[in-house]
């Protein structure tokens, strides 16, 4: 029984379903990306019956299912697929997944029948420790086999499905980048956001700008300039740093289940403490259990009133990495050219606040439509 809270919320939060064989790495991905577990600690994840609990304090809503070994229960499956925007299949690249492929194809067909618009994302996971060539060979093999199986089921099935492939690992940024690409396809406002970011980069001499889902380090949009992996890595490291820092001088916020984590994890909790204290006029619902309808009055107040968190790191080259809170879930992170930040601080602040208002307006509009 999956609760579905209000249609506005369904609209606002992209819904994805994680599926795959046991031990493929689904729980690990969830823990590492959304609950900030250290990748090494995933070894100790208990093999519990996977629930579909959706308690992620993030821009994205996710559910997880183990791909069942024997009988499928079409009733249950169809129901799940109908509500989903995307299904992510997590396959363990280090195991022999050949037997899985047939099952995968069957499941994909069921999903497609239930929801023809559904997006299929195949994660060939645990690619850490594999050579580049071997990764690509394994991926090619998987792609060929799966295409074949789908074709066998029905020749036009394969051609009408949206299937995308990703190489992922929780030990590096590949999992964040893959999830970012998945999520970006699900956000209708993505093109608009990209245009806004392009404009901002141009006005403020930014080399690169990301709109991040703050708690998961997934970026929901970036400007259209080419993305260099190093830039993403340093910006996401930066989000970690300030997120970790934010927790040190705040009394532990209520409702932050991950706050008391074991000392062996090298990263931080899922909740951004400083923001949780603000006037909760978030335009995007911050919690699935408490959907909130934002009004344009709310958005205006947030944009102009409260002091949103912001921060910057100066590098010895003179360049700056800067971050601005947009609302409870989102932050803008940008790489600025040398000395821009010192010389044009006021201009940059002004442009960023204009950008913030525009982003909030975009999502406000969206919510408004959802409420009909």
């Amino acid at each position: 029984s999956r609760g579905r809270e209000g249609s506005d919320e369904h609209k606002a939060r992209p819904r994805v379903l994680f599926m795959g064989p046991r031990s493929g790495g689904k729980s690990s991905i969830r823990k590492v990306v959304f609950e900030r577990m250290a990748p090494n600690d995933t070894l100790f994840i208990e093999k519990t019956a996977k629930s579909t609990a959706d308690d992620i304090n993030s821009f994205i809503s996710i559910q997880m299912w183990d791909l069942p070994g024997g009988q499928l229960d079409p009733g249950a499956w169809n129901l799940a697929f109908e509500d989903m925007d995307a299904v992510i299949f997590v396959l363990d690249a280090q195991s022999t997944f050949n037997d899985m492929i047939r099952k995968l194809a069957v499941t994909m067909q069921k999903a497609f029948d239930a929801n023809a618009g559904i997006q299929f994302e195949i994660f060939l996971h645990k690619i850490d420790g594999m050579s580049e060539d071997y990764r690509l060979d394994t991926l090619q093999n998987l792609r060929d086999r799966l295409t074949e199986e789908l074709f066998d089921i029905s020749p036009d099935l394969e051609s009408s499905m949206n299937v995308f492939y990703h190489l992922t690992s929780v030990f590096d940024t590949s999992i964040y980048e893959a999830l970012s690409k998945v999520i970006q396809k699900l956000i209708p406002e993505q093109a608009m956001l990209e245009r806004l970011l392009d404009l901002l980069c141009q006005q403020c001499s930014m080399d690169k700008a990301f709109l991040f889902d703050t708690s998961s380090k997934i970026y929901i949009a970036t400007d259209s300039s080419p993305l260099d992996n190093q830039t993403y890595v340093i910006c996401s490291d930066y989000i970690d740093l300030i997120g970790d820092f934010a927790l040190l001088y705040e009394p532990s916020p209520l409702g932050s289940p991950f706050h008391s984590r074991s000392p062996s994890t090298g990263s931080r909790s899922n909740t951004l403490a400083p923001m949780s204290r603000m006037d909760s006029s978030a335009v995007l619902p911050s919690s699935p259990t408490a959907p909130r309808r934002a009004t344009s009055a709310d958005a205006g107040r947030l944009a102009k009133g409260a002091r949103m968190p912001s921060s910057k790191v100066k590098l010895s080259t003179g360049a700056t990495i800067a971050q601005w809170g947009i609302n409870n879930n989102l932050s803008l992170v940008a790489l600025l050219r040398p000395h821009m930040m010192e010389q044009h601080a006021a201009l940059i602040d002004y442009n960023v606040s204009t950008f913030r208002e525009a982003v909030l307006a975009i999502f406000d509009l969206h919510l408004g439509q959802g409420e009909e």
Partner: protein
Amino acid sequence: MSSKSRKKVLLMGKSGSGKTSMRSIIFRNQLAADTRRLGATIDVESSQIKFLGGLRLDLWDCGGQDSFMDSHLTSQSSTIFRSVHSLIYIFDAESPDLTSSDTHYFLKCLGALRDQNPINSDTVVESAGGADPAEGEEAEGQGPTVFILLHKMDLVPEAQQSSKLAEFEADVTKRATESGWKGNLKFYGTSIWNETLYKAWSIVIAHLMPSLSSLRSHLSHFLELSSASEVVLFERTTFLVISSVTAPSEAEDAEDWDKRRFERISTMVKAFKLGCTRIRSPFSSLTLSSPNYTAVLDTLTPETYILVLARNTIQPAAIELNIRLARPHFGKLEAIGMSK
């Protein structure tokens, strides 16, 4: 170079206990994960580390394989154990021989330490200065200080960590006393995978530094002038905490702040700095403002970073300016004051 500004520190413990790993993380900016590639240390690797105020650390990483241990304790004994300022002894928390052969070797090292550094009450009257009592300099002048690290605590289930350390401390203290050891033994649980490593090493370094108290009073003054809530001073390369002051008016609220915040800052800033180095744009400074506070982390002197945290609505630029103004003053302190 006077013996006061040059301090010999021994790093000992069984092979594989993690000595070289610690050393490379703290002093050579290595990543914890890269320590898996370390080979066993042959004999002794000594390294000189320059700290602020002309202080030099002579760190002796003593290979821990049995044959080396035996030679450290016999033929090499006088070379190794003579004029030691501190001994850092590492135990592998997961070792099956923790309370048998591991402790046995440790007691032998204590014996050698005592034999080579006889306490002579005439020569060792060295003022400990009113250093932060929590960081304990009371052992100064009492012969070498011994720090015991129960290491790889990450492998011990979290619920058992504190009881394991307490039991171990009680057991080793009892046996050291029985063997005739009269000095202090300081115990810490550590792991290269979290901030406990920085906690323990900050204490070791604070212990090595003379005139920390005068530095603290200058920091207090700076705290007042800039109406900050807390200032923390970090050593530049290791990012270990050298000193910190919290405003008395914040004492109550500070109870709610993260108790391990200093070592956490060391750990996370150092990790981020490494990332910056990888893109060939070394880290220079950090400024943060949230609805509840403003924080600035910036260079104070060529060998230190300062973190200034203010909880009122101070503009970051005001803190940045204050740090800039304080630089010449602290620069002079570092040059003359620290090593006297």
